[in-house]
């Protein structure tokens, strides 16, 4: 599914506008970047996308399948346990909106980082096998050990986290075998192979599992943000916080890295360290997001590319803007998921993929 290019073939002139950083010599990017210094642009970008996210997060909990009265939601005279409107607002909608925001931000940011790390515009957070590992873990938990739990996390998220970790560890180990800079070719090939391998294991487990279990596992893969509690979000926050703290170090190095490892190295980037930091942080963010809501597809590719169309290709802008826009996008998709066919739900992964699929194709055609 992905186009794999060895770094050697990726001479700067072969770079397309999506991959090229300003300093790489893309005329459009340079032209639009010259007038204003990065600080001002960052401020306007973050303010703009931040406002979009804020508005989405304020509006989303007000809309749902059942009408509620805001006055009643915040009416302290009614005990919480008897206040249906407050329960719908605080137990059903707020955790969903919050989960949508953190998962959307994590997947979109991880998408940006993987696209830069692999120097491939079609990379997603799931390209390197993290989601297949997580799905296998979830599948095994559903089929074999469904009653285990640890604190706020039940068996399925824990097992999917473990699966994602194992998949990422295998790919990481393979790509750093020679103890020098990671080879993007090895990364991609290992990831794609691992994806197929885990998919085969998933199919095998599905085949021996019973009907209801297979159905539950398939439903898990479609993604679901209906948590019914803040606890799972709180449990995922430390991992997300660590990965976002690591993201903060990356943008400038990613700009140079996306020209090519040698060029970046010549400009003083510690290529090996940057690659490892990028891989670990993006994998961690992806694993946390997937364990929370299942492998919700297409956000990691749609959002970064949309954002690049708006703000250009500088990772210092693309990374924060993608995180904010990804959050707003998933909250909006989940709003559609829970209201379009109410009282039925559309799995949120179906909505993101139905929007993302056609966009992805358009992107492919446009690139060709």
């Amino acid at each position, binding site marked *: 599914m992905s186009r794999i290019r060895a770094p050697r073939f990726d001479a700067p002139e072969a770079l397309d506008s999506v991959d090229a950083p300003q300093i790489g010599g893309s005329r459009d990017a340079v032209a639009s970047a010259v007038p204003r210094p990065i600080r001002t642009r960052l401020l306007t970008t973050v303010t703009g996308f931040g406002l979009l996210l804020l508005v989405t997060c304020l509006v989303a909990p007000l809309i749902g399948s059942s009408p509620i009265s805001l006055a009643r939601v915040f009416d302290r005279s009614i005990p919480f346990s008897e206040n249906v409107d407050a329960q719908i607002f605080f137990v059903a909608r707020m955790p969903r909106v919050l989960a949508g925001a953190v998962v959307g931000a994590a997947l979109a940011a991880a998408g940006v980082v993987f696209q830069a790390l692999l120097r491939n515009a079609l990379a997603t957070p799931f390209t390197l096998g993290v989601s297949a590992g997580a799905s296998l873990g979830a599948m095994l938990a559903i089929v074999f050990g469904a009653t285990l739990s640890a604190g706020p996390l039940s068996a399925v998220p824990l097992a999917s986290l473990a699966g994602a970790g194992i998949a990422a560890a295998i790919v990481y180990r393979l790509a750093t075998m020679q103890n020098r800079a990671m080879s993007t070719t090895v990364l991609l090939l290992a990831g794609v192979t691992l994806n197929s391998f885990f998919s085969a294991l998933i199919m095998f487990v599905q085949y021996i599992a019973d009907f209801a279990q297979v159905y539950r596992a398939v439903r898990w893969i479609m993604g679901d943000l*209906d948590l019914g509690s803040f606890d799972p979000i709180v449990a995922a926050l430390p991992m997300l916080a660590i990965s976002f703290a690591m993201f903060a170090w990356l943008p400038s190095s990613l700009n140079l890295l996306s020209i090519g490892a040698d060029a970046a190295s010549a400009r003083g980037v510690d290529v090996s360290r940057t690659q490892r930091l990028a891989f670990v942080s993006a994998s961690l963010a992806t694993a946390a997001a997937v364990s929370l809501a299942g492998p919700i597809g297409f956000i990691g590719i749609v959002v970064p590319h949309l954002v690049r169309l708006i703000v250009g290709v500088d990772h210092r802008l693309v990374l924060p803007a993608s995180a904010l826009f990804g959050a707003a996008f998933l909250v909006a998709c989940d709003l559609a998921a829970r209201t379009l066919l109410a009282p039925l739900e559309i799995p949120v992964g179906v909505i993101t993929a139905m929007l993302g699929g056609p966009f992805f194709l358009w992107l492919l055609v446009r690139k060709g």
Partner: protein
Amino acid sequence: MAAGSKRLIGVAFVAVIVICAARPATLQERATSATRIVSLVPALTEMLFAIGAGPQVVAVSSFDEFPPEVKSLPRVGALLDPDMERILALRPDLVISYGSQTDIQAQLARAKIRVFNYRHAGLNGVFATLKELGAAVGRPADGERLAREIRSGLDQIQARVKGRPRPRTLLVFERDPASLRGVYVSGGVGFLHDMLGIAGGVNVFADVTRESVQPSIETMLARAPEFILEVRATGMLAPADDVAQAKRVWGALASVPAVRQGHIQILSGEHLVVPGPRVVQGTEAFARALHPEAFK
């Protein structure tokens, strides 16, 4: 297993010879009475045994558990993985398949083997299926008799709970063990919905014309059921732990009347989820849970 199945095949064979000898069959009758039946549908296997066609059954699906006689019969796969080769090797003259198994229906048609297509369709579907199945295996009177018996059993339950307040009920048949994720409930069609109505409950998702609904937390809060009835094919924990854990999990939805009043019950057993002759027992279990005072 092989010895048992051979014995059963032998019994079936003898039975067929005895029947044929006692009553010379016309060509028409021979076409409609099956002597070697393969059933891929557990509910219909139960029906076959209940109408006395058990000895004619030569193989069942991998999910069949009831009646106990099926334990010794060969297994030939199920809905998704029917083993065509084994089915053909058993030389059946009637195969009972799901309506959606079009591949094996076509293969069986080529092999000139009769197929009985089953489609899931509420409690009325159970009656209709019983009559058609009775006719297909040459026992039309038995099929109609059993349908009447089931009908009267259900009528008795309905009479027993008549006039009592009908709790608005959430009928759950699937849930993540430790959380409110992956909840599946009965919509407004299907045998579980029909059983709930006869047992004196009102389905809170009656307006959704589907067999199963995956409700969001929000819709469950908004529908505010007065009773939560969880139905499982098999119990995973000890019943007491199970109920305690279920109450803890549902406790997150404090404004739901069923949660406030502790009206949460778990019923387990295969008879609750198989739309066969045991629907009377299943419906009675529902009625006893919803209206214990009616059964004192």
